[in-house]
């Protein structure tokens, strides 16, 4: 009799947990989380220029992935999807914010690290969010401008132009 078996699908997962096994999609999620979290977090920092906000957004992006883990096509690269979600979350977060913005909190950094972050944050703060995101996606995450096009929601040419402007602003930052 099949019915109860199927509708107790989530309970089958529980059984697998009890049995020491893990469903394929959860295992893939765990792999994706370990592998992609640093990129998603940095991408979020690039958009928000704020570490705690970026942590929240990265968590939310992976929560979206978790919610879709059993319907997602895991054969396709997951990072571009996550970056698109991250960008939209960052944009939505910015739209909801009202000045004054939350005071920045910096965790996991020592005193020198905090000072360095505040300096670099000020420097990166002179870039537009798109310039910042384009620069980080290519220079830090290692995407080509073509690959970064989708996650950034910009054409490859616009990505290159944004990177060029970003570097120029940073080069003149003193």
């Amino acid at each position, binding site marked *: *009799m*099949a*019915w*109860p*078996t*199927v*509708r*107790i699908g*989530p*309970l*089958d997962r*529980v*059984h697998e*947990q*009890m*049995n020491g096994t893990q469903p394929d999609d959860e295992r893939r999620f*765990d792999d994706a*989380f*370990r592998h992609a*979290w*640093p990129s998603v*977090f*940095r991408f979020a*920092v690039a958009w928000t220029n704020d*570490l705690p906000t*970026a*942590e929240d957004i990265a*968590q939310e992006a*992976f*929560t979206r992935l*978790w919610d879709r883990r059993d319907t997602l096509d895991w054969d396709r690269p997951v990072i571009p999807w996550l970056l698109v979600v991250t960008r939209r979350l960052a944009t939505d977060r910015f739209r909801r914010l009202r000045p004054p913005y939350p005071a920045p909190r910096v965790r*996991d*950094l020592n005193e020198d*690290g905090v000072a*360095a*972050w505040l*300096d*670099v944050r000020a*420097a*990166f703060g002179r870039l537009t969010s798109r310039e910042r995101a384009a*620069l*980080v996606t290519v*220079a*830090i995450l290692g995407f080509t401008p073509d690959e970064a096009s989708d996650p950034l929601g910009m054409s490859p040419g616009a990505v290159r132009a944004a990177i060029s402007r970003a*570097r120029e602003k*940073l*080069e*003149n*930052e*003193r």
Partner: protein
Amino acid sequence: MSVSKDRADELLETWAAATDRRVPAFAPRASRRGHPLRAAVIVLAAILVVVAFGAIAIGGYLKPTQDLRQPQDAQSPAELAASSVQALATTPGIRYALTVAVDLGNDTMHLDSSGEIDLERHRFSGIADGGGGPMLLFGGPSSGSVVVADGLYVRTGAGPWEHVADPSSALDRLIDPDGLTGAIARWMASSQIDPTSRGAPCGTQRCQIVRFSVPAIALSELAGFVFGHDATLLPTDLAPISVDLYIDPSGFPVRVETRVSAGETTIDVTLQLTRVDPAPTITPPIP
């Protein structure tokens, strides 16, 4: 490389260092992953549901061997329980409604399902909703002895019917009538039936309620049968489990109620059954 370019790279390097974090632990909202002990409680509730449906399947499989029908007042609770299985054996069809409510303390899950089972043609159809929207179900026709042996079809939303090609191992076990009969028989044998039955209204009738007290070892053995492993993770704070079986004046089991709880987790399971005679007409949704 110019000095100004060095400054840009230096800033990028600092930025990269400041954002080089250890991957944190992922905490899905509302801790949906749950605690292993919670998981054990949910599995126990699943077992009870499986047993309830398994009893239906066996009821359709068994042929009546003796007439146990006699005035309910003259029957002991154990005889009432036995007669209810025989009542299932002579039932052409069943209408069911199942609710499973899980309270995890900080999260809840809910499953509602209803449908019909044709025990003569071994088909069933129903609808189920676990919170993700209604899902239509169809099973059969069967090449075996119970309701479904060769296919389950599921439809969600306006999408097409889809064949569930790889149902879990629990299905294989549930379509093994001999194995299931033995497992339920052992479950019944190790459970205690309250020697005093109670009366209670059920719909327009008055039912007799037979209460089973289910020991943990019985659940453990059933878990071993249904899931193919030993359920060694029974919660230490598992509350005693009792199952109330409501039997109508004709001897038909019309309602099963139970609660499984341990710690903050509580699961209420209610299964309502209605005899359908003649058998319901269930047309396969796909050729």
